[in-house]
């Protein structure tokens, strides 16, 4: 019986695909690679790699401990490489909470609400970041998160740097 090998990518080992143009402009495809983006990002920089009106998908380099963040809607963190601890707390009465209509914002310190718990997620694991909560990421070694969220105050748009622009 043939044995199949499933290939995933990582910061240490990825091979970007290609666009072979016949009669089109490569910019229309906004073609990038999550690991390539994360390899040059600052820790916890929220770089949009997909955008569909107010919605974005962000590639995040997880390294060390992030600030606490909160959003006015659910978000979903999919670990694409490495291991990430996700810490969850409820917001306290004195916390600023979400400051924008969409996307997440940083909190000045540890939220005052009770601890909700934590998740230790490895490659392929998806974690709910629930509305009404605050979250903090921690990664002992560089890891990569793909975040399903909305375009927020800290979403970084640097499309000209990350996508294929010439054929």
């Amino acid at each position, binding site marked *: 019986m043939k044995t199949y090998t499933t290939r995933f990518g990582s910061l240490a080992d*990825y091979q970007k695909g290609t666009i072979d143009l016949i009669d089109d402009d490569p910019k229309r495809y906004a*073609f990038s690679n999550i690991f390539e983006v994360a390899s040059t990002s600052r820790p916890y920089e929220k770089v949009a790699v*997909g955008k569909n009106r107010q919605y974005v*998908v962000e590639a995040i380099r997880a390294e060390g401990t992030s600030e606490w963040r909160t959003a006015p809607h659910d978000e979903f963190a999919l670990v694409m490489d490495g291991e990430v601890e996700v810490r969850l707390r409820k917001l306290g009465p004195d916390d600023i909470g979400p400051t924008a209509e969409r996307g997440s914002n940083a909190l000045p310190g540890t939220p005052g609400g009770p601890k909700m718990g934590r998740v230790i997620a490895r490659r392929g*694991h998806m974690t709910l970041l629930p509305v009404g909560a605050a979250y903090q990421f921690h990664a002992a070694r560089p890891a990569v998160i793909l975040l399903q969220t909305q375009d927020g105050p800290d979403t970084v748009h640097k499309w000209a740097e990350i996508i294929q622009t010439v054929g």
Partner: protein
Amino acid sequence: MSVTAPIQTGPGEANVDGYHSFRLGEFKFSRDEYFVYVEWPTGKHVMSADAFLRALQRDVAWQFFYGIVNFDGVVGTVNHYGTVDLFAGRYNDVYRKAELDHLENFSTALIKSTFEEMLDDWTNDGFDPFASPTETGSAFGIKRGNNRAAITRHRVTAARMVSMPGDEPLRTNDNGHPINRHFLDVPQDEPVKEAEPGFEAEVNAFNFFAYLSRSQVTWNPSVVSVCGDSLYCPTTEEYILPIIHGNDRVEWFIQLSDELIWQVEDRDTGAALAKVTMRPGDVAAMPADIRHQGYAPKRAMLLVWENADPDLPALISSGQLPSVPIVI
């Protein structure tokens, strides 16, 4: 030619091979041992029965999906979300110029019920239109039984996230989802979840890749997590996408594992535009004015990311929104 003709003719006598014929307006559909025949007032077309059934299965299961579902370069449907166009040659430059194209509009309920009957009648025992070619029996031959369990299987549409209490469940051996033969090496470990008392329902995570490794179908995006109108619709792909999808909005692909090759064409004429080869970690937008068909040499995990906002098709077709997601 465009007409509105809400005429449906149900099955009459079966033909010599045991299959019934169907009519929708002025379209007529029939099949024999190997082929499906489509006729309309200005032309006729033939497709291999297995390719036709694989396309028909997606169109029915997806409720006509977003935009255009081309069964091939000639026949297909356009979803207007309440009504559906059935066309022949409308998105084929040669048919258009020869004025051989034809289009009729039907209520979604009418065309859906007709397609469901057709799919049921023409799918033989042992043939699963959702399965990869090497995981199913033959579509061909004279009529022999049915495969109702396969063609009516549940489509996953999570309300918040798979594995949440009351939402779509995880896949396990016990609920009929063994690990696919191409994904036997995918780790099945679950994340560590430590919830404080009272927060068990909200501290949640699951192994997304393991979940996909247990998919029993191919080319069937299913909703796994929801952020407003932002839908994560992962799918596992093997062999060829049985339809050519014409976009009515921007759609994004995120390659999670292995490799896919996309043939991209102009949505309206079929002119070749590009070939996109995607490898793990790659992200690509499919603009709203193209159509695409994917090829997967090995079963691959693809995250299809959709924006389900119902206003998008009108905003794009009216020019209020561009057909591309990013303008640099």
